[in-house]
């Protein structure tokens, strides 16, 4: 093991320097010194090159001195023993060397040498649970410890986890092989020995393990050295990085400051509140978001700088000097400048905001006032311009005037407001409001409008007043018109009526009268015309006024009459006048004509009338005297008759005249008392009288002849008759007749019965009910009185005889006894007999008889 250990060092100097026999090869001390040089890394004094003993002892002594100089007490080890080749001594010395140079130096956590090595082993194998290093003998028997150590440091060299303690031999071999191959640690132990011996040699194990230590810790040292270098480099790098970073940060920061500062120093705004608010927002953003990182950056920068400086100082490097302009002071200054700008900026911004807010508020106020005013003013202009007052009535106008007065007050009240608006506009101007142009425009518009309103108000007032005056004047004219027009209208109506009046006149005097009246009327026309002109003049004046002042004249409230009506009526009246003239003339002519007709008629009528009267008298007088005989009377009457017939043409002529008169609508004729009617009547009377008289006379003749009355009797009767014929009508009225009867001794009661009797008598004398009793009827009655009268009784008796005393009669008997037509007469008129003893065809002659005389049995 020791040999291997030595060789592991010696071969570094060259393979020829390895030993083969530890007892022999160190005898000359050369390899010993070499070994010491190798393992200590120091130079020993030059060995003596001699082969002599004392040369060898000197070299060994040099080696031993060296060892001793390393603080190792070599007790009882002398150079001679070594030169002599004392194995025990040599081995002891080698062990001491190993101990001193391989193990003694081991320092692990303040434990040195063996303990330190042990600790080191424990440390390194700690992760491996199946390894437990407690010593330098048994713990290493299964070889896992070695493997663990290898694996710990160079895991790529073996797959530890495939190993097991059941294969100690393999484990050991594996470990040793690898150590030799890769770690440059020659085999120093024998795996078989290890396995087979109960307790491996502690020193050997220690020596071998220490090789591991040195190999690994060497590696480790290398590592550490590398680390240190790395660390140093890293530190350097870090420092450089820090420097760079600093530089970078510094320039960034400075750049940022450089950029930001002008922005903070920019004290311009767009003069609007939103704009400024936005800037405030930006500022806030800057403060909250942008600056803090920069502040951090600055701090970082400072720290970085300090750290850097400290590090540099600690690592004994020169202090860092930032590039020009990036000094700490520079940065600090720049930052300060920034902060100053910032502060100023914020202050300025806030004051600006305030100002703008105020401005905005003011502008708002302005707008509000303007709105209110504009709202109020809306439509006012139109209203003021309106010519409505030119079209209304007086009372409406007065109301409008009042309204206007009210408006004028309102306007005055608003003056204040307009001034206020202007004042605010002024202020906005002086405060440099951003939208001052709009403000000014609006203000100007309002002020201009205000002026216009003022003017229009005045104009309207004037207009209203003028209109009022005109309307009042018109009103007056209207009133005047009403006062005049009504009576004039009435007068015209009257005149029209009169002028149209259909007159019925019957004489020229009447016509003349009308004509005179008409002339009188015409005389008044002049005045009327004047009145008419005045009235129309009034209306025209109204129109003229209206036109002149552009006012629509209202309707006349006092009168329903229109000028047009008056005019129309007036022209009608005027037309009617000549019309009437014509009419009157016409009428006059007509009347004159009528007069002619009248005369014509009258002349004839008088003649004819006279003639008729004469004739009538003449006729009436016939027989009155009672001297002439009936025949003579008759002849005379017949003569008259002829005369009348001859005279007829005259009547006809008269009729023609009468027709003319009638056609001319002439209803009276003062030239004659005779009317056509009276003449006709007279004529007929005449004719009738003649006819009747003839008839009477004839009847008298008949009566006389039939009754055998003498002329003298006849005359007597005639005398009585004439006596009572008071009015010489040749007839007796019932009164006259009654008187006559009474005078002749008839008693006629003064009651209904008397009247009835008289009536009966009347019916006899006047069967035709003419209500007159003629002479021959009278005569007849007087002469009849003495004779039998046929009464109903007598007739009944006569029938009874014919009927053979039966109460009924048959048609057969009637036909037998009476002439055919009278029999039929009876048969037709007789009612059937309804007595108990009736036979078929029985006729009731009794009721028939009584009925003949107006008598019925009931």
């Amino acid at each position, binding site marked *: 093991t020791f040999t291997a250990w030595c060789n592991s060092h010696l071969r570094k100097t060259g393979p020829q320097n390895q030993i083969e026999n530890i007892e022999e090869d160190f005898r000359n001390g050369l390899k010993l010194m070499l070994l010491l040089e190798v393992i200590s890394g120091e130079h020993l004094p030059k060995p003596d090159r001699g082969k002599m003993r004392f040369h060898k002892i000197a070299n060994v002594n040099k080696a031993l001195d060296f060892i001793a100089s390393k603080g190792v007490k070599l007790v009882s080890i002398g150079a001679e023993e070594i030169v002599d080749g004392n194995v025990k001594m040599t081995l002891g010395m080698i062990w001491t060397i190993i101990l001193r140079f391989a193990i003694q130096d081991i320092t692990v956590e303040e434990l040195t040498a063996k303990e330190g090595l042990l600790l080191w082993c424990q440390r390194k194998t700690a992760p491996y649970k199946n390894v437990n290093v407690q010593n330098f003998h048994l713990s290493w028997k299964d070889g896992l410890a070695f493997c663990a150590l290898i694996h710990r440091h160079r895991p790529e060299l073996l797959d530890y986890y495939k190993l097991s303690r059941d294969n100690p031999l393999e484990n050991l071999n594996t470990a040793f092989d690898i150590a030799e191959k890769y770690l440059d640690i020659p085999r120093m132990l024998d795996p078989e020995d290890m396995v087979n011996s109960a307790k491996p040699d502690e020193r050997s194990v220690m020596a071998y393990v220490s090789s591991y230590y040195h190999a690994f810790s060497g590696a480790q040292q290398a590592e550490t050295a590398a680390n240190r270098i790395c660390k140093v480099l890293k530190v350097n790098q870090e420092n450089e990085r820090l420097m760079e970073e600093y530089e970078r940060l510094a320039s960034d920061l400075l750049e940022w400051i450089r950029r930001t500062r002008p922005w903070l120093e920019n004290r311009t705004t767009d003069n609007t509140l939103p704009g400024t608010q936005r800037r405030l927002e930006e500022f806030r953003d800057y403060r909250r978001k942008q600056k803090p990182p920069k502040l951090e950056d600055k701090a970082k920068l400072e720290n970085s700088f300090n750290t850097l400086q400290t590090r540099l100082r600690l690592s004994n490097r020169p202090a860092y000097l930032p590039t020009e302009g990036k000094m700490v002071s520079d940065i600090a200054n720049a930052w300060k400048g920034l902060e100053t700008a910032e502060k100023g900026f914020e202050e300025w911004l806030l004051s600006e905001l305030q100002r703008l807010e105020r401005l905005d508020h003011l502008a708002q106020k302005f707008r509000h006032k303007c709105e209110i005013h504009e709202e109020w003013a809306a439509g006012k202009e139109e209203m003021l311009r309106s010519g409505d007052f030119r079209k209304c009535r007086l009372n409406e106008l007065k109301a409008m005037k009042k309204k206007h007065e009210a408006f004028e007050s309102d306007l005055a009240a608003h003056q204040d407001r307009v001034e206020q608006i202007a004042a605010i506009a002024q202020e906005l101007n002086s405060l440099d409001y951003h939208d001052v142009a709009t403000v000014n425009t609006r203000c100007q518009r309002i002020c201009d409008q205000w002026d216009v309103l003022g003017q229009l108000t005045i104009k309207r007032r004037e207009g209203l007043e003028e209109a009022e005056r005109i309307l009042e004047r018109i009103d007056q004219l209207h009133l005047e018109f009403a006062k005049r027009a009504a009576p004039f209208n009435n007068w015209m109506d009257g005149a029209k009526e009169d002028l149209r009046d259909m007159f019925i006149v019957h004489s020229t005097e009447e016509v003349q009268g009308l004509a005179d009246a008409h002339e009188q009327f015409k005389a008044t026309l002049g005045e009327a015309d004047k009145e008419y002109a005045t009235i129309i003049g009034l209306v025209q004046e109204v129109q003229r006024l209206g036109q002149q002042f552009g006012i629509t004249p209202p309707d006349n409230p006092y009168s329903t009459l229109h000028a047009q009506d008056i005019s129309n009526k007036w022209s009608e009246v005027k037309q009617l006048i000549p019309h009437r003239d014509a009419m009157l003339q016409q009428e006059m002519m007509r009347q004159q004509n009528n007069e002619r007709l009248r005369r014509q008629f009258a002349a004839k009528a008088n003649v004819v009338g006279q003639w008729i009267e004469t004739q009538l008298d003449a006729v009436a007088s016939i027989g009155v005297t009672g001297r002439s005989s009936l025949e003579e009377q008759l002849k005379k009457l017949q003569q008259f008759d002829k005369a009348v017939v001859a005279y007829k043409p005259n009547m006809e002529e008269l009729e023609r005249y009468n027709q003319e008169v009638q056609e001319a609508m002439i209803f009276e004729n003062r030239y004659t008392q005779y009317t056509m009617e009276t003449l006709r009547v007279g004529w007929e009377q005449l004719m009738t009288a003649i006819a009747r008289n003839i008839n009477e006379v004839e009847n008298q003749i008949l009566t006389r002849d039939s009754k055998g009355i003498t002329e003298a009797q006849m005359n007597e009767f005639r005398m009585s008759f004439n006596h009572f014929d008071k009015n010489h009508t040749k007839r007796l009225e019932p009164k006259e007749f009654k008187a006559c009867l009474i005078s002749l001794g*008839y*008693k006629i*009661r003064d*009651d*209904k*019965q008397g*009247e*009835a*009797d008289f*009536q*009966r008598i*009347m*019916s006899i004398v*006047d069967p035709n*009910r003419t209500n007159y009793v003629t002479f021959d009827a009278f005569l007849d009655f007087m002469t009849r009185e003495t004779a039998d009268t046929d009464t109903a009784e007598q007739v009944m008796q006569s029938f009874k005889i014919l009927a053979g005393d039966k109460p009924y009669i048959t048609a057969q008997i009637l036909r037998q006894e009476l002439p055919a037509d009278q029999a039929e007469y009876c048969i037709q008129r007789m009612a059937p007999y309804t007595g108990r003893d009736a036979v078929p065809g029985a006729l009731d002659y009794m009721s028939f008889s*009584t*009925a003949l*005389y*107006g*008598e*019925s*049995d*009931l």
Partner: protein
Amino acid sequence: MSNVEYKPAEKVYIQLVRPDSSVSWGFRLQGGIDFSTPLSIQSINPGSVSERCGLKPGDAILSINNATSDAMTHDEAKAEIMRSGDQIIMLVE
């Protein structure tokens, strides 16, 4: 010529009633506007219904059953009476 005594004229309602139409009234009607004589009773049959009811000869008939008979013809009056059946009310004077 009938010579009737003077009596003051009074208007009286006479009611004539007979048992049936087989019994005649028993008076003679005279007059009528067609005869120009007033409607009157000419004669009364002795013991007749009309005598019993108070009708007298010479009575002037003013109305038959409330129909005035001033303007009636003889036949009209007769018809009115016959139409009246077994009961008549007459205003007479």
